[in-house]
């Protein structure tokens, strides 16, 4: 590492903030942009599993809430890609790489949504897992990203409440409705446990070293379990992991080790719905290319 890079590292590690036009080490810029781009991709792809259910929402209120939630996610993608653009990669280039499979998006968005139960579980638990990561990003050393995270976290707050409301209503409903929730939870538990990433030590994680992330993967996962397993159990739902329990002495949650091979397999583009969702994106983009041309021509 050069002297200048070392000084930069010490600067960010002591809480220094970086703006768009500041000098940055190449490694920092590259890791930062890739990380933020993946976040943008995830918001954009996260829309697709939920879109189908907008059309099938069973009440007017749920219809409005779900549409607003998905709208927020599109809005977040807009905020995030603008940050990436200011770091030197255009939106079109990002979409090219997303569609061709060169860049990645979070595991959870590669899985199918099968029932209304999924809608509830996603809004309640997947969004909860995401918000834990997002809150940690509020302290990102790169200031433009930290600033949009404020707006994103603020908007996410209703998503979780909406999710919990959907779930509580189902749990107070018919046997079939309760079964919808349990069945969805059984399918989503694996991806949820993988969501925060493999257990790399925080002090060995380059993302933490450069203060792009301020929280290690395991720490995030523990926070998720601490906050949400009690919420799951108090409704009489079961988690499909017989090993899951909190060790009272250490205060840490113990669980069956997630399948890290599955995570790798999925995020490298082999999830159950990866191909057809990327295809949908590609088609939507192709079909509307003429619109973007017309708008930018004048």
């Amino acid at each position, binding site marked *: 590492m050069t002297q200048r890079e070392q000084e930069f590292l010490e600067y960010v590690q002591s809480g220094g903030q970086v703006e768009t036009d500041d000098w940055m080490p190449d490694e920092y810029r590259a890791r930062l942009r890739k990380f933020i781009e993946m976040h943008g991709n995830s918001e954009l792809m996260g829309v697709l599993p939920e879109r189908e259910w907008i059309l099938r929402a*069973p*009440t007017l209120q749920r219809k409005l809430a779900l549409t607003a939630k*998905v709208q927020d996610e*599109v809005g977040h993608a807009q905020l995030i890609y603008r940050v990436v653009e200011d770091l030197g990669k255009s939106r079109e280039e990002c979409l090219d790489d997303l569609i061709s499979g060169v860049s990645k998006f979070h595991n959870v968005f590669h899985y199918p949504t099968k029932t209304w139960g999924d809608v509830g579980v996603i809004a309640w638990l997947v969004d909860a897992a995401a918000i834990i990561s997002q809150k940690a990003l509020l302290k990102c050393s790169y200031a433009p990203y930290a600033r949009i995270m404020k707006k994103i976290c603020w908007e996410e707050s209703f998503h979780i409440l909406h999710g919990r409301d959907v779930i509580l209503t189902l749990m107070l409903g018919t046997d079939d409705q309760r079964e919808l929730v349990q069945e969805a939870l059984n399918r989503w538990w694996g991806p949820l446990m993988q969501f925060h990433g493999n257990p790399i030590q925080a002090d060995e994680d380059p993302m933490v070293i450069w203060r792009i992330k301020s929280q290690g993967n395991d720490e995030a996962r523990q926070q998720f379990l601490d906050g949400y397993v009690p919420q799951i159990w108090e409704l009489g739902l079961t988690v499909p992991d017989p090993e899951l329990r909190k060790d009272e002495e250490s205060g840490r949650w113990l669980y069956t080790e997630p399948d890290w091979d599955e995570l790798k397999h999925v995020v490298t583009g082999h999830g159950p719905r990866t191909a057809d969702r990327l295809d949908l994106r590609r088609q939507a983009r192709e079909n509307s290319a003429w619109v*973007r041309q017309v708008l930018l021509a004048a």
Partner: protein
Amino acid sequence: MSERAQLLLEIADDELILGWRDSEWTGIAPFLEEDVAFSSIAQNEIGHARALYELAARELGTTADELAFDRKPEEYRCSALVELRLPEWERTIARHVLYEQADAERLGRLKASDDAELAGLAAKIDREEVYHRLHAEMWAERLQDEPRYQAALEELQPLVDRRNGGSPELTALWEEMTSVRRSQPAGTTW
């Protein structure tokens, strides 16, 4: 059913089905800023439908949700214009333009109505529709020289005042729209 309730249902059904169709663009609109904008238009339309159903529901002794979801396709009174699935942006904008024009006239008449409740709601809705009209105009100007947009206007114009009820398009939409709701007995809370 009173004439008033019939009128309310006609407008509510228009807004509901149009809003449902417009919401189909959420996540796949031509670009992100427009995606967010158009989704708000769709949500407003559903919101208008809800307010109108609530007025009708009081008179008919039911609820807005029951009016929105639990009637049969042939009982809806929406215009043929809103029933179509239009996955092409030029046709969606053409519909948006045509609908806003027709709706502006309709709302104008309602705002002048003797029925204070109806006139009041029409005024509220119109204050939001001002923005929809602006949006439609903005796009119309941009697309006016596009042959596919002109073709779409021609194609859709005759459908504005056609109200058949229960077209195959509407029936297909209704089945999807109510699939979750119908999976449990009537009166189940969601």
